[in-house]
C-alpha cells in the first residue's frame, strides 16, 4: 500500500513541480530569444557574395541537458502502449534545443552572425539505472562570423 502511495506521490510531485519548472524555463527562453534577436543564427554554409569582408570566424557551441519528470515519464510509458504523439516529451526536446541555441548565441556575443548552425540531440542517463530516467542533451554549434567595420577596414587596408 505504501509503495502505491509513494508512486502516486511521485506522479503528483512530478506534475506540479515539473509544470512549474517548465513554465519558468519557457519564460526565460522567450525573454532571452528577444534579447538575442539581433544576432542571426542561420543554416547557410556560405556568405552572400555581397556581404562585408570577414574579420574573424570561430566555432561556437552551446549545449543543454534537460531531464524528464516522473509524470512525463509515466505519461510517455502509457503512450508507448497505444502509440501516437508523445506530447510529454515534445516540450522537453523543444526546450533543450532552444536553450542550446541560446547558449550558443551567448558564447558568440559581439559577433555579427552564426553560420552553418546544426543541432544534435542525444539521450543520456537512459541506462544509469534500470528505471531508465532519461535526460536529453541538445548540442547546437555553428561558425560565428564577425564582419570588419567600415572604419576598421580602412585602417587595416
Amino acid at each position, binding site marked *: 500500500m505504501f509503495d502505491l502511495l509513494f508512486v502516486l506521490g511521485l506522479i503528483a510531485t512530478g*506534475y506540479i513541480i515539473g509544470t512549474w519548472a517548465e513554465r519558468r524555463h519557457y519564460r526565460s527562453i522567450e525573454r532571452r530569444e528577444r534579447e538575442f534577436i539581433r544576432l542571426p543564427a542561420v543554416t547557410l554554409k556560405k556568405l552572400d557574395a555581397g556581404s562585408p569582408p570577414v574579420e574573424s570566424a570561430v566555432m561556437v557551441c552551446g549545449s543543454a541537458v534537460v531531464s524528464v519528470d516522473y509524470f512525463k515519464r509515466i505519461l510517455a510509458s502509457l*503512450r508507448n502502449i497505444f502509440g501516437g504523439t508523445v506530447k510529454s516529451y515534445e516540450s522537453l526536446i523543444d526546450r533543450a534545443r532552444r536553450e542550446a541555441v541560446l547558449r550558443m548565441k551567448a558564447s558568440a556575443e559581439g559577433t555579427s552572425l552564426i553560420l552553418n548552425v546544426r543541432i544534435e540531440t542525444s539521450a543520456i542517463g537512459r541506462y544509469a539505472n534500470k528505471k531508465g530516467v532519461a535526460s536529453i542533451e541538445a548540442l547546437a554549434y555553428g561558425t560565428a562570423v564577425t564582419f570588419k567595420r567600415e572604419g576598421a577596414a580602412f585602417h587595416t587596408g
Partner: protein
Amino acid sequence: MKYTPRLPQRNVNVTPGSPLRDFLVLLLGLTAILVGLYFLLGLAVNLIVPWLPMDIENRLAAPIVRRVVVKKDVPGQEAEVQRLLDYLQTECTDLPYRFTIHVSDNPHVNALALPGGNIVVFSGLLDKLKSENELTFVLAHEMGHYAHRDHLKGLGRALVFMTLSAVVFGSDNPLANFLSHGLYVTELNFSRDQETAADEYALVALNCTYGHVSGAGEFLRKIDEGDGGGNGGHYFSSHPETSERIAHLKDFAKMNGLDAGPLAPLPADFNL
C-alpha cells in the same frame, strides 16, 4: 539577402492540450482494456479448468502448499481430522484426489482448499467447533469445492491477474508487488454460487456420514454470531449471507428428505 529579425508567432513543435487530460484518457482506456481482458481470460479459465489433468494439478500444488502451510502444527488434531476426511472420501464421496489435511496455528476462523487435495484448517476454526458433525460439514464443504474444482478457478484468475500486471507494469514494480500480496486472498475467494453449490454438496455428504444433517446450520450460525462476518475474514466474507445460506440449506434438506438428528461429540483428545 536581407535578414529580418522576428520571433515565431507560435510554437509548432509542441502539441497544445493538457497533459493531465491525456494522462486520464490513457489511464482509463488501459484500465478498461485490462478489466475486459481479465474477465475474458477468467471465463476461459472456467472453461479450461475442468479438463486440467490431475498430475498437472499435483505439480502446481507443491509450491503453493509450501508457502501457506507452516509445519509446526498439532499432530493429534491433524490425525483426527485426517481420519474424518478419509472416512468421507472412502464412504461418501468419490473424488479423484488424495486428500491431505493441514492444521495451521492461526486465529482466523477459516479453512482453505489448496490445489492437489491439500485442505488447510486454521486452529481458530477448530476452537469454535462443538461437535464432530460440524467438522464433517466444514470438510465436506471444502471437498465440494474440489468436486467443482473451484479452487483451480480462483487460482487461474489470480494467474491471469499476475500475468496482466507483469505485462503492463513489468515483473518487478511496486504495483505488481503490492498486488501479489493480495494474491493469497484472491486465489481463495469463491463466488456465492460456488459457495452454495459446495454447501449442498456438504449437506449430502453429511447425511451420508451420520444419516442426518444436524450440525450444518449450527456451525453457520456460530460463524455469524462469533464474527459478524468480520474476523471470519478472508474466507467467510465471500460466503453468501449466513441467514440466506441457512435458509437455503433448510429448503435443500426438505426437498431431498434430509432430517435432523443427534450430534456426535468431538474426538476425546481434540480440544487440548
